[in-house]
């Protein structure tokens, strides 16, 4: 059968596989290195404090966005209070903490003691039942064994 313009256009779209198109990185943590190195090596959290306005930024920053001053690193306890949270039943993809804690987990805004801003993170509840973690629940950071220097190296649990 002769190929006509019409038959050419009637064929379904040709699909091409791209399996290996995946950028890889050796990613510099730059000015945040002290924060992530402390997590990796010592299971401890640091916060960033502006030497000028004294505001404590958490998550930390290398520079204060208000004063443009380089921050100082200060230790914080890793304990804090939930200010808002949501029980999560959808695992998503590539979420590091969900590589080692199960759903449902609680995604929360946490006011870490001594910080002026809130950090969002995952909380592993004790029970599967909604209502255990609420606004006001006290939580603390737990560090996993295999740490590499990301905020996925730790998670939170309620303080009993």
């Amino acid at each position, binding site marked *: 059968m002769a190929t006509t313009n019409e038959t050419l256009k009637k064929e379904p779209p040709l699909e091409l596989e791209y399996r290996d198109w995946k950028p890889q990185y050796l990613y510099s943590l730059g000015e945040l290195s002290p924060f992530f190195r402390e997590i990796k090596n010592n299971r401890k959290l640091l916060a960033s404090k502006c030497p000028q306005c004294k505001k404590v930024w958490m998550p930390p920053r290398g520079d204060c966005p208000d004063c443009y001053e380089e921050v100082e690193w200060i230790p914080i306890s890793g304990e804090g209070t939930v200010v*808002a949270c949501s*029980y999560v039943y959808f695992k998503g*993809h590539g979420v590091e903490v969900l590589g080692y804690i199960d759903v449902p987990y609680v995604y929360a805004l946490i006011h870490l003691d001594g910080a002026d801003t809130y950090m969002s993170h995952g909380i592993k509840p004790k029970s599967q039942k909604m209502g255990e973690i609420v606004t006001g629940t006290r939580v603390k950071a737990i560090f996993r064994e295999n740490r590499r220097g990301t905020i996925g190296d730790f998670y939170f649990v309620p303080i009993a």
Partner: protein
Amino acid sequence: MRKVAVVGIGTVPWQMRNAEKTFRALGLQVAKRALEDAKISKKDIDNVVYSIYCESMIRQQIPSTLMQDYLGFQGLPSLRVEAGAAGEGYALGAAYAQIISGMSDITLYVALQKGGDFYDFETRSRGDGFQNGMFISMDTTWLQPVMPSVPGFLSTFCLVPHMEKYGSPTPQQLAKAAVKNYNNAYTNPEAQLHQKVKVDDILNSRIISWPTTTRMSCLYSDGACAMILASEDKAREITDKPVWISGTATSTYMTSRAEPGNIGRMMGTYLAAQRAYKMAGIKKPIDELDLIQVHDLITGTEIMAYEELGLCELGEGGRLVDEGVVERDGKVPANVDGGRIACGHVGGVSGAYGACEIVRQLKEQAGDRQIRVRNGRGVMQCIDGHAASNSVTVFERDR
């Protein structure tokens, strides 16, 4: 001062995946339709603005130069603007500014994005491929390793604290807003979903991140649309039904820089609305607007948008749903096209589609889903997945 009008629109039906066309041909399709709608020639265009959200989704960096070639605009200026799923509003603002300044008289605005070619070969799922592929859209240092999803982020930073502060919206109200959008999509032939659903169907669908369920969350689609924008003198030559952009503004307000004063709000939408309303001379939006197209990434952000756009006080958005104010036959209908939940959504395009819907409605060319036009004004609002990039644009027809 010069003025800017929309003088032509071009849309295509929303599809989960459009494998029939590459992104280039998809862009040409909507450009052609917009030119036909405006009844002008391609030669009349002197400038092109692109809203293209994401490069990894189309496996192509710097797509705007390729688009410029495919559309045959050799030598003309082009500009691509991106701001996540608010990029269409930011791009519209840029096109507006170029015409106001005199840099352009007639600009072609093209919003396009495909994401449906993502694929996960392990799970044989497009959805999984999509989730993997778009993950670097969010803050890769502070959010990605711990954050479940965009609905989860918005539920936690915006919706839940808002519910705790005001007791509203309730899960029931969130579901009702979703039902409204499904019903609206039912009458839109270009919508991706044509389903009849009830409040219980919405509430009983899988919880993604409490209180947000899958059916309270947006679709993901391949989509494109285009607009022809013209200066006042050109617009008068082209059409007797111009739809003016009488105010447009953006605000980038980082929700994830969470502090006591800003959780439970979409401050950027509030600030952008204030600026856009000042330009357009709007004082009491509830009495001055005929419709709004707002960002229902989740129904929580739709209802919060009613409040931040000043249709009601903070905490009263759920009431507008209960009282039917935002229904198609209500005082200020919201998302009459079906919104992102039932009509279609992809970053960089859905807000532009909302703008096209407003233009259709103000020209009273919306067929079965035509609303009653009293004031001749509508507002398009869109946000990105962090609710950080916010854009608000006011459209109005001649009085």
